[in-house]
């Protein structure tokens, strides 16, 4: 027993000793935390923001987005689109190489057009079951094969079924990154932890749940002026779950960058107007801009569902009354510290080029109009309407309660039903819930992405039309917009569709979200964009 106790004591003494110091002050490492964790480094599974961010450092695609969300060349030096908008021809750069790896016998290999054919076919392969398979829905199938054609090593052709102007935006997604077939042949499913790409950084070590370290790719193909990118030597990602602990680490300067904000320290960091608390100005900066995320409440519109039989939300007047019945401006001020813009316009969020505050009119706070709508529909003061149940997850309970309170004043009785995320998602997809909370983050920077939620052929479960909204005029304009290559005409169509949605009120748009980035003062070049994509190749650290 004595010997045992002695061993334990020794173990603790040993553990409390200082560890070898690996810090190298001359090298620059960028550190950030991923509370949600990273599930895979395979771009075929880059569904969540945390996976997208790390894949964006490791891989490249044909094209990339700049901070204004314009499509720019990446591995494709240039491209051409046929007059009918159905054929895209890309010219591949000749100086792009994969990361050095043992699969290339500690060497590397040049990227060729066939690598894209392989990578794209892998995304649509049923055996891979990638969540990004939908992005090639518009690609033509020839003899059962998708029309990704490598004309030679540097010419890649993609044929579409029909014109689809946002297609280049789709190709900028991380799903469309190029990977070498040798890596998949060798690692199989374990490519998820042995990624080989062309990105500015390459994997050094991934201790899952503890730390992920990426090192500079010294052979990266992009330059800024005459300097080869990236500037940083390494990226270190930690996985602390508790957001308060992350905040304390950031305050201590142990983390260089923090995205978003948690309710637990919201009031400490921000003023009521959403500005950075002045006491932190000397330590770090706040970068903020619109985020392509619309937060909303939605109604099931398909009256053939029995759930709507005696449900008040089947009446347009009731849906509009709810829309007019609460103050979005106050809601944002008191519950969100003005992070985000009250949604007084359409469903298309602020930050997209087709967002238009003049052409699209939504709903503001007009309780009298709300009451009148109800009275005209024969439900003065909400009498005879019964309860309306709003289903949500726990994280949005504060917003729902606020709306519930305000709607009580106009006579509408709202019951709130809190569900686990998996249950809520399943019930919405099966059209079992008449009134629910939702949000939509842009997959690609085009309003078509948002409007597809209301296109009738997209009824769930085939597509993302969860409300089962159906409007012939809307569908007609949607089809016209698909074939319109002129941006301004297409945006005009988008606005018309957005206005139809607002008039019919299948949704109660709450707010357009905002990107919040807290960055230490010694970090330069970390911009922001409405897709909230993290790009570190041009970041410098002093």
């Amino acid at each position, binding site marked *: 027993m004595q010997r045992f*106790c002695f061993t*334990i004591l020794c*173990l*603790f003494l*040993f*553990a*409390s000793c200082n*560890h*070898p110091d*690996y*810090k*190298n002050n001359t090298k620059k*490492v960028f*550190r950030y935390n991923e509370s949600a*964790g990273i*599930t*895979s480094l395979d771009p075929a*599974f880059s569904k*969540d923001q945390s996976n997208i961010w790390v894949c964006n450092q490791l891989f490249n695609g044909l094209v990339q987005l700049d901070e204004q969300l314009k499509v720019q060349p990446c591995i494709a030096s240039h491209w051409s689109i046929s007059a009918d908008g159905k054929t895209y021809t890309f010219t591949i750069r000749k100086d792009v190489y994969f990361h050095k790896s043992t699969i290339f016998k500690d060497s590397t290999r040049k990227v060729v057009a066939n690598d894209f054919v392989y990578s794209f076919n892998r995304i649509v392969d049923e*055996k*891979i*079951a990638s*969540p990004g*398979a*939908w992005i090639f829905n518009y690609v033509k199938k020839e003899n059962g094969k998708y029309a990704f054609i490598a004309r030679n090593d540097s010419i890649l052709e993609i044929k579409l079924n029909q014109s689809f102007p946002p297609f280049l935006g789709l190709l900028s997604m991380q799903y469309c990154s190029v990977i070498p077939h040798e890596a998949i042949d060798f690692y*199989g*499913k374990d490519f*998820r*932890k042995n990624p080989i790409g062309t990105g500015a950084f390459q994997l*050094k*070590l991934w*201790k*899952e*749940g*503890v*730390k992920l*370290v990426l*090192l500079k790719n010294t052979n990266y193909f992009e330059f800024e002026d005459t300097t080869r990118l990236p500037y940083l030597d*390494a990226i*270190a990602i930690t*996985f*602390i*779950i*508790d957001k308060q*602990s992350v905040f*304390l680490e950031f305050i201590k300067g142990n983390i260089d960058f923090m995205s978003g904000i948690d309710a637990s320290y919201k009031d400490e960091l921000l003023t009521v107007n959403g500005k950075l608390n002045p006491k932190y100005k000397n330590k770090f900066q706040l970068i903020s801009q619109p985020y392509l995320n619309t937060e909303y409440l939605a109604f099931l519109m398909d009256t053939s569902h029995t759930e709507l039989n005696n449900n008040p939300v089947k009446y347009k007047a009731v849906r509009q009354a709810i829309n007019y019945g609460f103050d979005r401006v106050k809601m944002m001020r008191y519950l969100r510290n003005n992070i985000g813009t009250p949604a007084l316009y359409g469903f298309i969020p602020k930050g997209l080029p087709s967002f238009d505050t003049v052409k699209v009119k939504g709903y503001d706070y007009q309780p009298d109009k709300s009451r009148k709508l109800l009275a005209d529909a024969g439900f003065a003061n909400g009498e005879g309407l019964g309860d309306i149940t709003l289903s949500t997850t726990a994280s949005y309970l504060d917003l729902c309660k606020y709306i519930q309170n305000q709607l009580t004043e106009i006579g509408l009785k709202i019951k709130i039903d809190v569900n*686990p*995320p*998996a*249950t809520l*998602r*399943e019930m919405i*997809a099966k059209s079992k819930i008449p009134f629910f909370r939702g949000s*939509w*983050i842009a*997959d690609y920077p085009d309003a078509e992405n948002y409007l597809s939620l209301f296109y009738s052929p997209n009824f*769930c*479960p*085939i597509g*993302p039309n969860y409300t089962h909204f159906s409007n012939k005029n809307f569908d007609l304009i949607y089809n016209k917009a698909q074939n319109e290559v002129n941006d301004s005409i297409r945006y005009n169509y988008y606005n018309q569709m957005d206005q139809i949605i607002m008039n019919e009120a299948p949704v109660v748009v709450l707010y357009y979200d905002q990107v919040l980035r807290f960055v230490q003062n010694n970090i330069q070049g970390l911009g922001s964009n409405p897709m909230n994509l993290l790009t570190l190749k041009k970041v410098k650290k002093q």
Partner: protein
Amino acid sequence: MLQFLLKRLFYGFLVLLGVITVVFLLFNVLPGDPARMMLGQRADINSIEAINKDLGRDKPLTTQYFNYLNDFSILSIHNISDTNNYWYLDRTKYTSAIKLIPFGNYALILKMPYMRRSYQSKRMVTEIITEAFPKTVLLAGVAMLFAVIIGVIVGVLAAIKKDGFFDRISLVLSAFGMSLPSFFAAILIAWLFAFVLAKYTGLSMFGSMYTVDDFGNGEYLDLKNLILPAFTLGIRPLAVIVELTRSSMLDVLSQDFIRTAKAKGLSPYHIITRHTLKNAMNPVITAVSGWLASLMAGAVFVEYVFDWKGVGVVIVDALEKYDFPVVMGVLLFISIILVIINIFVDILYGMLDPRIRLS
């Protein structure tokens, strides 16, 4: 002894079968679709079907159930010729498989249990368990060790000095320890020792068993990070052990054989260590074994607050994401551990108290 072991192993087998059946049924009865959780907002029917096919969820429930049993069982039946067959003996899944009896295209196989891959991360469930479980074992083990050593010493002292000052104080403190909720204690202790007194203690608010440097050059065991979570986790069992040891000691001390020992002229130290303590330990061992077994299932709050990524964090995360193979794998693993601990404790009873016979 052998008969006892075989009997307990058979019961253990029934427990595992029960766990598989209940978890399997729960996952299929409750609303929620893993494919939808994997796809997020873009869950169209084609992708859902592709994922369900990949996960084998396109088959009837009974088939899925037997497929899981077949994968998990050490003895299983697999196809050995057709690579497209669902039951094909894929060596990347069924490692170290040995063919026992071939019949036609199929064969009876002896293999390691295959617990499949996580729906969310595609990581092998065995890999997830082998990473998380040692952390939980270490945390639970150190917490219990701390509780047992301190608890027994304090309990014995309190019993010897019954109704004295030390006894009263230990009673009050143990009542306090028992009523302290672990999530509150965790936050309080983290704040006090790792934030307010961080300069003096040198402890951090969170940290894993291993620490990796920022350039990925070194990975070292960081047992310092274990101190606060183990202490927090040990508080409650400590309080219980103090009380149990004290009352059990008092009970034994009042028995005839102690009086005999005293009459024989044995020293008080000898009486306590050799005669009283050994006989008073049975209820303590029952409590410790039960507690240890439940700690093996993960101490969710403490693991969350101190960012100690053990079984508790893994299972809560998997439940949230509807990650069936991870939940099933972890629960089965925990069940196996519980079965083993129970058998071990039964044997230990017999060793400590010869009046108890294994049967």
